[in-house]
């Protein structure tokens, strides 16, 4: 096969964690090689794709960068359902974000059926003088949920490449696990693998989501257009 590529793996990655821990910064650092201190908080979720070559395989990731602000909580399940990998991010200078990340992890474990790759990320190590979560504590927690632990800085571009390399390797390993059905494997280098994605979100998002505020049933009450101008 040309350039020796044996297979392409297409998987879904979801990024979870409190607002402001640096989820968007991490993924834009990785996919766009950029960092913006003045970035605005994510509204809803953003979709990225990226491609990693490892050994004789290509791993293509469809990435959901979710919004961590509390008001979006009800929306998050539709992004982690059917994910093959998750980044659980906290900010090493913010204790609450470490606690809340554990809640995300629990929720994730309770809702995902197939085995998945989990990574716990302690971000903002460039601010280590303000560190409130120790490396040991985080590592211990990661081990307890079967996740790997990484420390990163989106600002200084530290440790991020390693995270994605690990995820890619683990996904390749996972792809030979027969119980994993949602990970797609193609022969050779499939450029268009990502185009065949249109069913993903619909097919998987039918479960229950509790959310008092997010109701759209009432759309029919909306104003109709006056047929002519009003004077």
């Amino acid at each position: 096969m040309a350039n020796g590529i044996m297979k392409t793996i297409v998987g879904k990655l979801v990024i979870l964690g409190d607002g402001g821990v640096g989820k968007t910064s991490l993924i834009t650092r990785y996919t766009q090689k950029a960092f913006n201190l003045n970035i605005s908080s994510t509204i809803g979720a953003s979709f990225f794709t990226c491609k990693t070559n490892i050994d004789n395989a290509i791993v293509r990731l469809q990435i959901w960068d979710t919004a961590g602000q509390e008001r979006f909580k009800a929306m998050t399940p539709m992004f982690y359902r059917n994910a093959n990998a998750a980044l659980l991010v906290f900010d090493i200078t913010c204790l609450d974000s470490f606690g809340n990340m554990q809640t995300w992890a629990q929720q994730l474990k309770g809702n995902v059926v197939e085995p998945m790759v989990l990574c716990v990320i302690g971000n903002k190590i460039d601010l280590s003088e303000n560190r409130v979560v120790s490396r040991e504590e985080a590592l211990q927690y990661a081990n307890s949920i079967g996740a790997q632990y990484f420390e990163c800085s989106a600002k200084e571009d530290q440790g991020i490449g390693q995270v994605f390399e690990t995820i890619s390797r683990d996904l390749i390993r996972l792809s030979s696990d027969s119980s994993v059905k949602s990970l797609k494997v193609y022969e050779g280098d499939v450029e268009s693998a990502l185009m065949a994605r249109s069913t993903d979100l619909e097919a998987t998002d039918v479960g229950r989501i509790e959310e008092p505020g997010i109701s759209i049933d009432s759309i029919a009450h909306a104003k109709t257009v006056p047929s002519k101008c009003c004077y």
Partner: protein
Amino acid sequence: MSCTEVNPGASVESVLVTTDSCENFEQMSSSLEEIKNYVGKSPEVSDSSTSVDNLEESNSLNAVGSDDDYIRSKDWLEKKKHIFVLSSAGKPIYSRYGIEDKLVTMFGVMQALVSFVQDQNDTINCIHAGSTKYVFLNKNHLILVAISKTEESVPQLVSQLNYVFNQIASILTLTRLNKIYEQRRNYDLRRLLSGVERIIDHLLNFYEIEPALTLGAVQCLSLPPSIRDTISSAITQACSKIKNLVFAILLANNKLITLVRMKKYAIHPADLHLIFNLVQASESFKTVESWTPLCLPRFDASGFLYGHVSYLAEDCQACLLLLTVERDVFFTLSEAKHKIVEKMRRANCLEAINESLNSTDGTCLNAGFPELRHYIYKSKSTAQFHQPEISAPYINNTERLLMLYKRAHRRLHSVGRPLKLLFERSPQEAVLAWDTRGFELYVILEPLIETSAAIASVGKLLNWIKKREDKLFHLNAPTF
């Protein structure tokens, strides 16, 4: 004037809900339900019994309280317009300047004032103290306050408060907002609004620099009509099979390129302004595709629409929003977007958009009107307006220009004594404002211009706009 029959930019059908710009936005987002709640509810007396005594106490606290240092700082006191949002229980939610927590005492005073008057079965609307106006907007669970030393009128300030309220409703939906406070009157809403301060800040600045909000209208990007039609049909074709898509909105640089809608529905300019503001305030929409819940309070304050939000391409910074009632059709819309961009690219629409965005020859002088400095023309039947490129002497003083327009707008729409025609001369400039059945026109002229010459110019200008109306306005109202 002889040219009233010239009515550029008029259209029978409009993509926008047409409002009279003098409408005060009092009713803006009170859906039927809110009105019902409001009427059905007896005022809660228990907490609101804060009387004048407490008020005085707070004031004296104010004098000694150390947390109030910032309030007394020169910087804070010199701000021309403060905007505050608090819950009806007096909890701070938003302050345009300074950290709300430091202003707790003041929020207490404001809440006390409102509820004191409410206890007399009255509502407080505004207080004038010297040149300072205190304007109150009392919603079901929120109190919004403007303290302004600007010359903006009370209705103009109320309209800004309404925009802020709608911004909050747009983030949470009115239903959720009401539910939260019905369950816990003391809830700290900031928990749910983190990150939103920035959007509200932006909205308030937007109001200061964009005539659109004062006018209740939207400006279109000037484009050859064939290009605009091609773009609209690229959208309709790519989306024709998609169920429950309500609006497709393409905008760039705070100007509307096109808007395609579901039959029967139109969008309200105030909702569109919230969208413009959100897009401009959100760096995070750039370079990715986002899936964003969004409530358009004038469309329906009770629920969310979901938006696929993305910029067209790296080489064309126009933002496309596909708004649907379905929460899980991201990939369908993502595919549609790619089709739309492909079609547009093939038909050279991206270039046309860029060309219009980059063009700088749209000044009055370039159009052959040396005696005019600037103007705003609003077509009422489409809720759209057009203004030329800003030129000297306002390039570095858009604030003054905006102030002139706001003043003229206020005079035309004065509640007590509305005017049809206004011509005013000052040493700096002459201002002509004209309100007809079909349009509003505001013109800034050289100060020494003769009245007859001004009128002749205006006639010429209307004809000039008429000739280009299909380029300057979105006159079709395409549907899916």
